[in-house]
């Protein structure tokens, strides 16, 4: 085992690839757990190794295994983001003429980490089942069908929970924004008002 690892490291060209091969089954299991749907697993696994190879060309990767997991996680998150973005695009097709559809990017204005903590608090206030569904959907990126199977509730129930969860989060953020005078939430929604 140890000698094999050494040999892997010596072969600098394909170091990360060898680790990927070694870890592929485990990474796929990991991806399956966190990816939006099981059909995405191949795509995500492939994207993961592609990004890893790219990164390896640019710099040395001291911990290939941990690195692969980190990339897989990022790929899943990006997939979720892309999906959300496409929903927003779809909605923006209906923009009334008086509304300009592009606003300054939130990410540029707000410390993402702090915002994440805020969301986390918001999620923590959800009723139990609603929270379960919401966490599966937004934290783990499960599909409605998978959530429905896992929790033994109907797909339409999971939809209702996701809607209610989002609504409550939105209320929570509004309340918090009202509580603290110079909150970012307020700043960012100021542009959206009248």
């Amino acid at each position: 085992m140890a000698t094999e690892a050494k040999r892997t490291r010596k072969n600098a060209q394909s170091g990360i690839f060898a680790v990927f091969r070694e870890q592929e089954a485990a990474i796929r299991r990991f991806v399956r757990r966190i990816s939006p749907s099981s059909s995405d697993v191949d795509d995500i696994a492939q994207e993961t190794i592609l990004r890893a190879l790219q990164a390896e060309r640019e710099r040395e990767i001291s911990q290939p295994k941990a690195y692969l997991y980190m990339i897989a996680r990022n790929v899943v998150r990006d997939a979720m983001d892309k999906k959300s973005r496409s929903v927003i695009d779809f909605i923006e097709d209906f923009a009334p003429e008086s509304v300009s559809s592009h606003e300054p990017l939130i990410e540029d204005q707000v410390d993402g980490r702090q915002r994440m903590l805020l969301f986390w608090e918001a999620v923590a206030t959800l009723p139990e089942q609603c929270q379960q569904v919401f966490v599966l959907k937004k934290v783990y990126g499960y599909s409605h069908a998978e959530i429905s199977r896992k929790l033994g509730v109907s797909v339409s129930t999971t939809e209702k929970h996701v809607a209610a969860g989002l609504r409550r989060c939105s209320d929570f953020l509004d309340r918090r924004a009202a509580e603290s005078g110079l909150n970012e939430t307020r700043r960012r929604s100021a542009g959206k008002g009248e």
Partner: protein
Amino acid sequence: MTRPEALSADAPDLTSEAAAWLAQLETGRLSSRDLAAFREWIQRSPRHYAEIHRLAELSREVNILAGMAEPLKAAAQRRRAVQRLWSIPVLGWGSLGLVATCALAFTLLAGMPDPAPAVPEPVFLVTPVGETREVALEDGSTVKLNTDSRMEVAFIKGRRNIYLEKGEAFFNVAHDAGRPFTVYAGDRSVTAVGTAFSVRWTDRELVVTVSEGKVAYGEAPARAAPSQASDAGKVMPASSAPVSSPRTMLGPGHRLEVSPLNRAELVERLPENVLSRELAWRSGFLDFQDAPLSEVVSEMQRYTAQEIVIADAELADLRFGGVFRIGQTDAFFEALELSFGVNVEQTDDNKLILKSVN
């Protein structure tokens, strides 16, 4: 504000409707009839459009939670924990009168006996491992103690003294220029007049973090009469002795570290996001971002009585990120197992051994 008041009165259900439509859009399952209905709905008014657009942006933002990898199992517990926490006004530092009742076992100073040149009866505040506690002091200041901490509050005429014997505490100091507020930790002291800062004194390492206002930092003279036999050997200033001459001023966002080895001092200015992460424990969170596991574990160790051991050297450098509730170390170990390929093994003598899966 996000929505005008009139709107919520006119159409109390707009947000719910928008959220329901959004949830359906996100599933991607939309029949042509659904689509027609959606088109009709969103075109009813610009407010309909604005509302669903706002929620869609929010929904996208919430995706960042995907970075947390919080185990589901912990969710229900956490919810209860948060509700418990909610009963304490953790967030409103200004209105903490109620909190005094949470100090339970501790008798706070009801007022200074008038002719009191001597040290009044001291007050001790303690937190067990894994718990935090918030206490309102008689001068209107508040103190929040982190895990495994112990301090003595000794307020006398003209001076507010705190002796942090171990652990960590965040102070929100009521302004009183005539009565400096001084925190003593080991052989150092931190003095404020009206400000918010934290002092951490663990394993002879001192860390001072200032979130608002300014504090003066310096060496503290020896304390004449330690009030506790068990504290023998600790160097503390006498309550009646003049405050040491402070040497360093620390401003908002500054963090001072005093090395446990050679007492070397390092002052740095923290970016806003790092500052909020450092002080996340005040809201009951531990917040790590891209931190080596060795560091995360030594931090986690403060919150649990179980000894945590990193068995594989290669694990020590594993970069780790996540947000956890204080007192729920299980969630941390679950995240390690689920998302970071770490095997967590509990031994018979109640240790937790972290190993690489392969």
